[in-house]
């Protein structure tokens, strides 16, 4: 008697045939295939888009840090250890008369100067001359500023000129107004050539310039700048002490990368006899801060993207399982013509994997498009890390493979007789 099975090669399904069957299964039911893919498309698309947008946003944050936060040092006057001022007055500021020039000698300083909000009695009136508008306001912030401070503030001028060193040295009664104050008092840019004046409780200040914004030093919505020495002459020394509203401060604009070095040197340079009186605030370590921001955002969004992928995987798994149940008859037919359980499993696994790969490809394209379009509308530079963008379609492949595993196993376990009953 011949050996069982002798003369018959075992049934085989080549990789090429399995792939062809998978493609046929996908192409010939486009509606179902599209819906099955949708989960992976959304998951991978969200993955790529979220990480791309995070990287793009972080890049933008880094740029902001580098142009402003990274180049600003502030120094506050904490006042002398022993109060040497006569009762009822404030001590001389901790900054020397030539504080601006001293700071300018430190390598890396672009501009530096002293400023403080001038303490005025409650109800001080700011008014324009009768000839102009006669309007009176009590809500203007009066700031004293040295020429170096004005330069370090980086004012955006609307009209006129900045306070000059000469005006400061000679304690001229001149002022700069921000656009809000100018509008409140009825002083327009067109009137500057006629040297309009603002009266602060009767003391006249000639307006020499109007500015719209300052990159450094926030002075509130309504501001008026007068020379430092004019303020000292008219209103006395500023109140010392960290945290007091009127404390004198030095604002320093530095070159990129020089802020930390400037922060180390400035106190001793400005007040060598008592450097500890000056409290220096260097910028936050930009790399550390940027890393923290990036890390937090990336971690959060990565979790969201993984959840999207999980939803996609469940979608593929569920739809493949339904497909297995619907195609039980087909499984029976294939078994009746010689297919082995592993061939059935391979076919369904190939289909789900192909769907996952296709979904991953489409999702990656959509994700990249979202990042690029978003960056273009914001005029930002799109940042896409190749480390996760290029392999993203493979994520779809893995999702399809894993999601199809159980349905494929279930299909393989279906007995041909049972399967044919459903055909």
């Amino acid at each position, binding site marked *: *008697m*011949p050996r*069982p*099975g*002798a003369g*018959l*090669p*075992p*049934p*085989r*399904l080549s990789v090429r*045939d399995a792939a062809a*069957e998978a493609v*046929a299964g996908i192409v*010939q*039911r486009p509606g179902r295939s599209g819906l099955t893919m949708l989960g992976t498309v959304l998951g991978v698309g969200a993955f790529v888009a979220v990480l791309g947008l995070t990287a793009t946003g972080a890049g933008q944050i880094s740029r902001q840090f580098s142009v402003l936060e990274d180049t600003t040092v502030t120094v506050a006057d904490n006042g002398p250890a022993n109060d040497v001022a006569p009762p009822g007055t404030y001590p001389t500021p901790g900054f020397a008369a030539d504080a601006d020039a001293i700071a300018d000698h430190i390598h890396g300083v672009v501009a530096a100067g002293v400023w403080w909000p001038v303490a005025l009695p409650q109800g001080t009136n700011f008014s324009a001359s009768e000839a102009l508008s006669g309007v009176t306001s009590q809500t203007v912030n009066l700031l004293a500023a040295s020429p170096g401070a004005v330069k370090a503030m980086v004012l955006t001028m609307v009209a006129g000129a900045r306070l000059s060193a000469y005006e400061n040295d000679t304690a001229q009664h001149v002022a700069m107004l921000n656009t809000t104050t100018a509008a409140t008092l009825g002083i327009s840019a067109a009137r500057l050539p006629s040297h309009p004046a603002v009266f602060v409780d009767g003391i006249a200040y000639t307006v020499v310039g109007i500015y719209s914004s300052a990159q450094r030093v926030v002075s509130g919505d309504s501001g008026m700048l007068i020379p430092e020495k004019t303020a000292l002459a008219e209103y006395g020394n500023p109140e010392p002490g960290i945290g007091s509203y009127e404390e004198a401060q030095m604002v320093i604009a530095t070159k990129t990368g020089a802020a930390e070095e400037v922060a180390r040197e400035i106190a001793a340079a400005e007040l060598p006899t008592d450097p500890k009186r000056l409290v220096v605030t260097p910028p936050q370590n930009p790399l550390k801060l940027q890393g923290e921001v990036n890390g937090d955002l990336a971690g959060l969004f990565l979790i969201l993207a993984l959840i999207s992928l999980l939803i996609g995987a469940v979608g593929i798994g569920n739809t493949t399982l339904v497909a297995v149940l619907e195609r039980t*008859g*087909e499984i*029976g*037919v*294939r*078994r*009746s*013509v*010689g*297919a*082995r*359980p592993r*061939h059935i499993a391979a076919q369904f696994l190939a289909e789900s994997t192909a769907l996952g790969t296709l979904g991953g490809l489409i999702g990656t394209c959509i994700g990249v498009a979202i990042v690029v379009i978003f960056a273009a509308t914001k005029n930002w530079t799109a940042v896409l890390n190749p480390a996760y963008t290029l392999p993203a379609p493979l994520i779809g492949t893995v999702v399809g493979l894993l999601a199809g595993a159980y349905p494929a196993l279930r299909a393989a376990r279906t007995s*041909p*007789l049972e399967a*044919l009953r459903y*055909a």
Partner: protein
Amino acid sequence: MTAPVIELRGLARTYPGPPAVHALRLADLVIELNDYVAVTGPSGSGKSTLLHLLGLLDSPTAGSYLLDGLDTSKLPDRDRSALRGRRIGIVFQAFHLLSYRTALENVLVAELYNQTSRGTRLRAAIDALIAVGLGQRLDALPTTLSGGECQRVAIARALVNRPSLLLCDEPTGNLDSRNAASLMALLDQLNSGGLTIVIITHDPAVAAHAGRTVAISDGILSERTGAPHA
């Protein structure tokens, strides 16, 4: 001496209950090469159980089934699958065609697992469809074919691997009389060409085409002699 195509020795199939159903009881049957056998009986008599056992879609609970001399009851699934693919062709009453595949692709499915080249498979599938009279409908979907044409596609699928045994389960059950007559003529022609055919039917007119008729009742086989061959 050539072994019989089919040799059943005390073959039995009992479905576990409760209550247990003895669908086939100690069946002995020998079918030689080129035999044309009709298995007849009323519904529930065990006809389909016998066909499933002969087609290796099910396993017996007792006895042995020798196909071309091989004891199939001792074969692993790999060899049973190989026999289903190469030695046995099965035609079902409901055709069991893949609705989203063309006639040609439905036939090609049967060749997918037999390790031949794609060109060889394509040629064989086209030849099989031409042989059943569907050479002009290769690209037609089953939904656009008549019942008779669907059954011919199913026969082409069953024959494409050149089996030694063709099993037909109520092949005319879903056909009108004209298509049924045409199909039986095709089966007669195939038998004349040397193919061994076993038809499961409850229709005496269909059974009349076979050279032998085996009756089955309550799972017990009994052969009638002298049945006419139409």
